[in-house]
């Protein structure tokens, strides 16, 4: 997956977790928590979906890397290089 695809993958996951949030306008650099209503429970759900869809294990101490979409793309890139973007459920 390219960086753009990873961002799309994370947005797809956020959409299933928080279906009422508007995710079209999310920018790459501001913390996700400041742009939409995401709490620490939602981050857990994102991690669980990443594991389910792409088999990526994100250890607890790395959750902070997922704070922004850019952070997600940078952190996940090495793990997702060989993966295809999953079609969202």
């Amino acid at each position, binding site marked *: 997956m390219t960086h753009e695809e990873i961002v799309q993958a994370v947005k797809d996951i956020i959409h299933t*977790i928080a*279906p009422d949030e508007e995710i079209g306008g999310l920018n790459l650099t501001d913390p996700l928590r400041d742009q939409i209503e995401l709490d620490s*429970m*939602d981050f*857990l*759900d994102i*991690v*669980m979906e990443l*594991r*389910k869809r792409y*088999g990526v*294990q994100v250890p607890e101490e790395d959750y902070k890397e997922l704070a922004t979409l850019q952070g997600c793309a940078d952190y996940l890139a090495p793990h997702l290089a060989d993966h295809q973007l999953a079609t969202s459920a």
Partner: protein
Amino acid sequence: MSRSTHYYTGSRDGKRPPSGDPLRKAKDRYDVVVVGSGLAGLTAANILGRAGHSVCVLEQHYNLGGMATWFKRRGGHVFDISLHGFPIGMQKTCRKYWGKSISDRIVQLEGVRFDNPQFQFDTTFTREDFTHKLVDVFGCNPATVESFYETLRAMNYYDDDGRTTAELFEEFFPGRNDVHRLLMEPISYANGSTLQDPAITYGIVFSNFMSKGVYTFTGGTDLLIRAMRDILARNGVDVFGRSQVDEITVEHGRVRGVRVGTREIRAETVISNAGLKATIERLVAPDHFDSAWLDAAKQTRLNCSSTQVYMGLGPGEDLPWIADLLFTSTRPEFDSASLADLHGQSRTFSFYYPKVRPGTGRHTVVSSMNANWSDWADLSESDYAAAKARLEEDTLRALEVHVPDIRSKLTHVESSTPRSFAFYTQHTQGASFGTKFEGLRYSMELPQQIEGLFHSGSVGIIMSGWLGAANYGAITANKVDARIDFLAAETVPTS
């Protein structure tokens, strides 16, 4: 439960002796066995079942839900035990882990009222209204109120500075016992905490709870738990009631399964939703733990238990509008520990108007008090009956202040005590709200003691109540899912 414990009428009915083999349809092996069907256990089971794992829930009672329960009595009465109210966060939690059919039924309570010698008013239980009360009714400085909120919001599980809630209140509102009452009373009722508990437990709960109103589930607890049962079935989770887990079996430091009577069900992962103390003191043999850890974990203190009085109005009887939730006390001054006094002067009333169970037209009133196990545990049969009768009489007198002709409307009155809660859930000392703060640590550390064994359920004050328990179930499910994934990767090498 020790054999010397005796139960008397009123705390015995409702549990039926097993007929047939409740586990006849159970498989011999699951990925995950969940011990207990409280909201933490059920939520964890649902998330893991939905994720495709084979999951089984074993519950000793014939009903699911744990403390999230209800009971029926002749004359068409249905009483809810713990549906007084929960924070708005439950909406999102249910939406994510159970679906829209459940979250759409969560609605805001319309009226919450305080009535005590220091103040009497209605509140929307929102941050705006608390500000209004603190500033305009109590005369607090608006800047102080804001900085109090800010301090609470910044509080984090990881930075406990050892301060107590009492110290926190004294810092912001020195000498204002009335303000302390407003800020603490609802939370003491919601989770059994007192002014002596750490300020951070207060801060975390306050920010969730006393900010956007109080919520309830339309249709009642029975509808909620039935809906959850259906969803679990759709997600392939096997659920068995009347199945008392006697032991969590462990081999070479790793969980092997659970034993129900003579039958062992194997599982790579076990989640115990039984109380933390029961889990470490009764369900797992002590030699499987590091002894220093076990000794320290056993020191964990419990939160209080409860008493309740259930009052059912006859069909066609009406109740004037008072509030959904009424915090009452005749004590001149507030002191959180005294909320648990035997025959004390403080109680909450939940008025369940027909809107709770639309179409039934029925009203019930449930009053709750915090209570200490030690006040009830050793009463003789006759003293126990007398104490219950007094509790019911005191409660009716307190209710008459608000509904003078209440006695003529009622066709059923019944009470429960710490002994009832211990009997139904097997929680040590009938604890209603799990453990004090230190319990969270031992709950979280359990898998480091025994590989594959997790605890999930009310602990640490912050992980209690419907929302706390359900969220802790989700947190545990996430850890368990990671473990299963890890075990699969160990055995089946990926390309």
